[in-house]
């Protein structure tokens, strides 16, 4: 069986043992995959923004901080052990070359920085990444091996 489960924007899905998690066309957003090789548990999270605001939020997976926390909590419920996780990230592009120092120009970079800081705080090792630049990325994660494949427009696929 090779089922593909789609992870939307501001969304997270878990898979065990088999199948593929996929999130399409990450622009300035970031896709974060966690894989526990011992029990073959895989999560793929698609965040949009670096940090949650100090108010009630309706979508935890929209923000890097609350999204990562909630993903880790759910993985631990399924028996995941944080120290074993293999983590890979993709995205954080600057889709438009806009002038000046606007939030629109820098959001990809800020997302990358925030995700890295949060992973560091959680003591999760970031093993591989394909981030930045100016193009969108589709990210596929195999639940069996934790292998990540990055598909882009007009470039060869990259395997992480």
């Amino acid at each position, binding site marked *: 069986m090779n089922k593909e489960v789609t992870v939307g924007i501001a969304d997270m899905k878990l898979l065990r043992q088999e199948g593929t998690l996929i999130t399409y066309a990450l622009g300035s957003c970031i896709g974060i995959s966690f894989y526990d090789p011992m029990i073959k548990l895989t999560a793929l999270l698609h965040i*949009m*923004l670096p940090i949650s605001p100090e108010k009630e939020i*309706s*979508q935890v997976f929209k923000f890097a901080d609350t999204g990562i926390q909630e993903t880790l909590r759910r993985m631990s419920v399924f028996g995941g052990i944080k120290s074993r996780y293999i983590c890979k990230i993709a995205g954080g*592009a600057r889709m438009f*070359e*806009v002038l000046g120092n606007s939030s629109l120009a820098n959001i990809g970079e800020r997302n990358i920085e925030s995700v890295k800081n949060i992973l560091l705080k959680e003591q999760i090792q970031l093993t591989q990444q394909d981030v930045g630049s100016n*193009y969108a990325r589709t990210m596929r994660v195999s639940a069996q091996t934790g292998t990540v494949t990055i598909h882009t*427009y007009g470039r060869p696929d990259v395997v992480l």
Partner: protein
Amino acid sequence: MEIKTYDDVGATALDVIREVGSIGTGNAATAVSELLSANVRINLPDVRIEGFNEAIALLGNPEEPVAAILVQMSGDMNGIMLFLLKIDFINAVLHTMLGKTVSDYSELDELEVSALTEVGNIVISSYVNALSGLAGMEIDLSVPAISINMLGGILSVPMIELGYETDKIMIISGKFILNKHQLDSSLLMLPDIPSLNKLITKLVAGHE
């Protein structure tokens, strides 16, 4: 009525936004007609309030390439204008302006990309000029930027920009019709919520 989320936008307000949108897109169509010396119309704009994932599905496949011209609005109206063009519209423009066509986005050279950027800029500024005239709002526009890439990645830009205040976006979109052929292109206006309030106050208050 002060709106807090896009879901609060009432039916009357949506109708007025659609009406104003059609004047804006009419203006944009005239600008493109002159540029291409052809009969260009835009169908009655569609106004939708959708979640992020639904908005992408509405406009196409997230992985399909498009050319997008982005202009930021500031002043009395904050938000983003996006003009999305697919290959048939691009070829209609290139054929008229430069006498050639391409079969894939990757074939576009620098001159062609800047011609498309300029067309996008004309479309967007004629739309916004109509709107600002009607609503009596001063709207400043940024220098246009272009991206040729996956639709999903491009749409994430306005979604992120508005992401701290909303889980949904309002899309005002119209499709161009050139010599009776519908071309795959959309003009999107994505105002933030305070701007939408201003617009509704200025335009709708008298109608309710």
